[in-house]
């Protein structure tokens, strides 16, 4: 079953579109990597999926629901980790978790059980009463990650998750992603760390100039580019070279 379905989506910030006829699906329990050069349209695609931007044309469905049909049900289905951590400077770590739990309708027992596991995993138990001003960039990112995983939705949308995280933080994030995937959640992850994407993603979507240049498993991408033993780095460079030859 498709958790996310983009059908011929054209959209952008102004009348001039950034995304052109974009179509792809993410299935239940799938980890999909969204890969592309700077300005390829990765963040714009994500903004369209999370409902911060409306497509000029085409349709986006999450769990079979369109944003316009039922915004609350649409939003209930996913949590989002932005590239740059965006926290409330006036809330402590504990209050960020409590706010998220209240907004997504978690009961107290579930909140306490989930937050305990996450705080331990990301080694933040002793910083519950801290304000974001005292956090490093990596810690701020951990707060965003914990809030997203606290909700336990059917879809995670993660934009450049590894920036600023220390190696243990990256490992904890990957562990959490694996666990959630096994439980049936889908993950859309935009990243430039291609070796990690190649290792962990079930499928890759190569985005170029607002269009899907190629998509599929690593083997499918290799055949599409006619490079049998290529790594994702090789395919990425091949995609940009193709473009410069055009």
């Amino acid at each position, binding site marked *: 079953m498709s958790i996310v379905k983009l059908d011929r989506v054209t959209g952008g910030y102004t009348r001039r579109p950034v995304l052109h006829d974009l179509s792809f699906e993410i299935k239940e329990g799938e980890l999909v990597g969204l890969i592309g050069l700077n300005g390829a349209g990765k963040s714009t695609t994500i903004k369209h999926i999370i409902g911060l931007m409306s497509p000029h044309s085409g349709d986006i469905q999450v769990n079979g629901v369109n944003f316009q049909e039922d*915004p609350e049900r649409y*939003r209930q289905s996913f949590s989002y980790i932005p590239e740059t951590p965006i926290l409330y*400077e006036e809330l402590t770590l504990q209050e960020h978790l409590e706010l998220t739990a209240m907004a997504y309708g978690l009961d107290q027992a579930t909140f306490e059980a989930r937050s305990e596991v996450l705080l331990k995993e990301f080694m933040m138990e002793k910083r519950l009463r801290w304000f974001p001003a005292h956090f490093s960039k990596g810690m701020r990112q951990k707060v965003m990650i914990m809030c997203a995983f606290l909700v336990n939705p059917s879809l995670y949308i993660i934009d450049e998750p590894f920036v600023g995280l220390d190696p243990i933080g990256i490992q904890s994030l990957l562990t959490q992603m694996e666990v959630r995937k096994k439980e049936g959640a889908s993950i859309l992850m935009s990243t430039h760390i291609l070796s990690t994407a190649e290792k962990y993603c079930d499928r890759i979507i190569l985005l170029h100039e607002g269009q899907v240049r190629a998509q599929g498993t690593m083997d499918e991408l290799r055949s599409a580019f006619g490079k049998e033993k290529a790594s994702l780095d090789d395919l990425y460079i091949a995609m940009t070279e193709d473009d410069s030859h055009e």
Partner: protein
Amino acid sequence: MNDLKSIWGKRFYHYMREVQKYMQYIFTGHLAIVLVFAIGAVGYAYSEWLKEISTDFPAAILAAVVIGGALVFSAPVTLLKPADLVFFLPLEKHLPHYVKRALRWSLFSQIPLPIILYIVALPLLSTTNTASTTVLLWLVAFIVVLKWIFVETEFSVHFARSGQGIWRDRCVRFIIAASFIYLWLSPYLYFIVIPAIVLGVYTAYWYKQKEQKPFPYEHFIALEQNRMMRFYRFANYFTDVPHLKGAVSRRRWLSFFMQRPKFGETVSQSFLIKRTFIRTDDTFWLWVRLTVISMVGTYFISIPVAILILVGALAFASSLQLIYALRSSDEFRMDMLFPEPQVFREQAIRQVVRAVQWIQAGLVFIVGIIAFGLSPTVGLLLVVMVIVSEITIRSTKKK
């Protein structure tokens, strides 16, 4: 050399455009109305007070303290930017050309406040026969000269000590300025030579201190950033300022106002907005300031109509500015993705503003009872504040 001159010119042009952009929101908005009412009420009370004042009122001391206080705050406006730390380094020898223009602008931009206070003090000084017209005319020239020296001195202190001990310096200059103005207005006006000599020595000392140090780029850049941030925070009460980041404090002593989390209920926005109001320094202290002004005005102003206009205008300003501040900018916030209707945030903002405006009205009511006893006027104060706040809350449209 010419490069830094033209850099100052370009920066100044962009700075003025930036300031004008926000000023038009500030002065075409509700502040103009509040200012008209507040100045009207205070001006009326002042003129009534002058009618009753005795000639032995210590007007010279009051004028010296107030104008002296306004003169000492002479922070340099340098328009320096973080990148200057790198790009201005090779031009350091030519920096005085840039600084000269910066200090000239600092003087021009800061001189209006002491001059306005001087103009306000004139009727008081004449009514009490404190000084002759010639003496009063000379005073304005002294104010300009003192301000010019203070701008130079404060710049030297920042330069020599990276701002350390700036309050000590301001205290010293306040004593010099206040005694200078007081002596000039007193019968012993030739004694101004004493503070003048002290000021000369003091200024020369800091000038020499400055000469021994390299230009502290980081300190002046931080000073400039803080200054602009203060302006943006003020402008944010009237319009959206996108790049604004306000300071926050825990304020544990007000924790009983911050509701505990209620799981399973849709109260996340109220949980958030209460904390935003109490912990964001700008918003919280803005409300405290306006509440204290209302309370002080109620206690000291003896004309009921003037009090009603003042507290009504301040209740309007307070509720309107709180709504704007709590709505915050259109930048992305995580609660934009919460699975709850958008209207919840607006409802939570109105509830919180209504609650704090009731508290404001209650405090003014208590002060009213202390000042006038239980009278219909005091009851009317409460009614006016609550009604003005409620109408403002209901009628404030989105920016």
